[in-house]
């Protein structure tokens, strides 16, 4: 149903606006999807609000004018559903971890096991944030005792440490390695020890443009959206 929004409230060249709250890691993908949505729906304007998932939940809790919420993890979406702030969420993508190393891989990291090496400057996300939880899962699955020099707040912070060569290795999402281009090199983590992070999306209960909002969610779940996400390195939701 890509046509869902056509007959919706703002169909006849009006100036309807929907606001999409999306995790910062979705920035480039959702900018593309929003452009597609605007192209399909004449006169509809999509406003994108990117921030950390937990920021977004807090903002919705305080009455922010959101129509769609896309989270980078289930925990934050659960907070929103618990408060009945959103309608039933749907999973629209998944992401797995990869090892990021500086260009040239100076510490010679080639496998997960190398992460436990002595004197390696390893950076992870803190266990409190989604990518940190995933990193813990990887360590457990691979039975590694990791001692990071830093437990970062977000994937972006891990990437920054790696791309500047400050850290010898970091655990980030596959999508991040792709987005970073030449700044880092990726080392794959075998599927059996990898962790999978799921991305849920939902319409916001208070939305004044419920139909358009649902249209956007549908577009993300439809082929158009899924292709865009796949280009960025996301895997489809299970």
């Amino acid at each position: 149903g890509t046509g869902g929004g056509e007959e919706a409230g703002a169909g006849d060249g009006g100036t309807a606006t929907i606001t999409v709250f999306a995790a910062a890691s979705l920035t480039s993908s959702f900018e593309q999807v929003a452009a597609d949505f605007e192209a399909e729906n004449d006169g509809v304007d999509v406003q994108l609000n990117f921030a950390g998932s937990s920021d977004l939940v807090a903002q919705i809790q305080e009455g922010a004018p959101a129509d769609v919420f896309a989270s980078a993890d289930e925990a934050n979406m659960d907070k929103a559903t618990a408060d009945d702030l959103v309608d039933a969420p749907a999973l629209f993508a998944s992401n797995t971890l990869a090892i990021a190393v500086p260009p040239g891989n100076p510490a010679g990291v080639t496998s997960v096991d190398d992460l436990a090496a002595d004197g390696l400057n390893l950076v992870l996300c803190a266990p409190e944030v989604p990518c940190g939880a995933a990193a813990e899962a990887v360590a457990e699955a691979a039975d590694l005792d990791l001692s990071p020099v830093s437990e970062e707040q977000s994937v972006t912070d891990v990437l920054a440490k790696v791309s500047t060569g400050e850290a010898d290795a970091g655990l980030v999402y596959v999508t991040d390695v792709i987005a970073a281009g030449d700044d880092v090199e990726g080392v794959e983590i075998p599927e059996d020890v990898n962790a999978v992070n799921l991305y849920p999306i939902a319409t916001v209960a208070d939305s004044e443009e419920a139909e358009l909002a649902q249209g956007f969610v549908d577009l993300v779940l439809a082929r158009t959206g899924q292709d865009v996400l796949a280009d960025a390195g996301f895997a489809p939701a299970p």
Partner: protein
Amino acid sequence: MGVPRWLFVPALLGAAFVLLPLVAIVARTPWSRFLELITSESSQQALALSLRTSATSTAICVLLGVPMAVVLARTSFRGQGILRSLVLLPLVLPPVVGGIALLYTFGRRGLLGETFDVLGIQVAFSTTAVVLAQTFVAMPFLVVSLEGALRSAGRRYEAVAASLGARPTTVFRRVTLPLVLPGLASGAVLAFARSLGEFGATITFAGSLQGITRTLPLEIYLRRETDAEAAVALSLVLVVVAVVVIGFARQSRSAV
């Protein structure tokens, strides 16, 4: 003349410490893509929004901060010390916590939310919210520098003016304000600079909507998710804008 020679050693060290990182930024700027990066629509919008909101919040800081500084410097009442410390707090509060506090206050479920709702005013997630966030973090700068200037200017000229028959308002307008103008100007520059760089409180309280609440620092943060070099290029724009504004403020001040 008059400055001990050896002072130049730590002064140079300090200057180097502050300037080297700026040099490093310039060195890492992707000059080939620079123009394209900074002329993109979203950058332009963010820059315009930043300038507009920072100017507004600086104006509010002056309007509310000057009276606060005068009251703190020129009167004494029980609890003044605590009040002064409290007014400094936005300085120490991590900006995101400041943003949360603002949400708790002006948000729909906040302290004043209902009042505002009744009045039909939606503050959070609007350009107004950006201005409020910037004003909140920038206010202490203005108050502190101005209070210092007022204290060191002393009260002798005000006493003379009063004895010539000038009412407090006249004294304030024709003696106090002109005497502390340099202090007020540097306070305003500080407040403007702080507003221009404000990030944490804005993203938390105002969100990040292109053209409405996404100021240049927010745009930089967002770019960084996907393209660290672009973020550096935009930071350089911010730096240049700041230098121009600060330089301009200095010039027009010394022209007075």
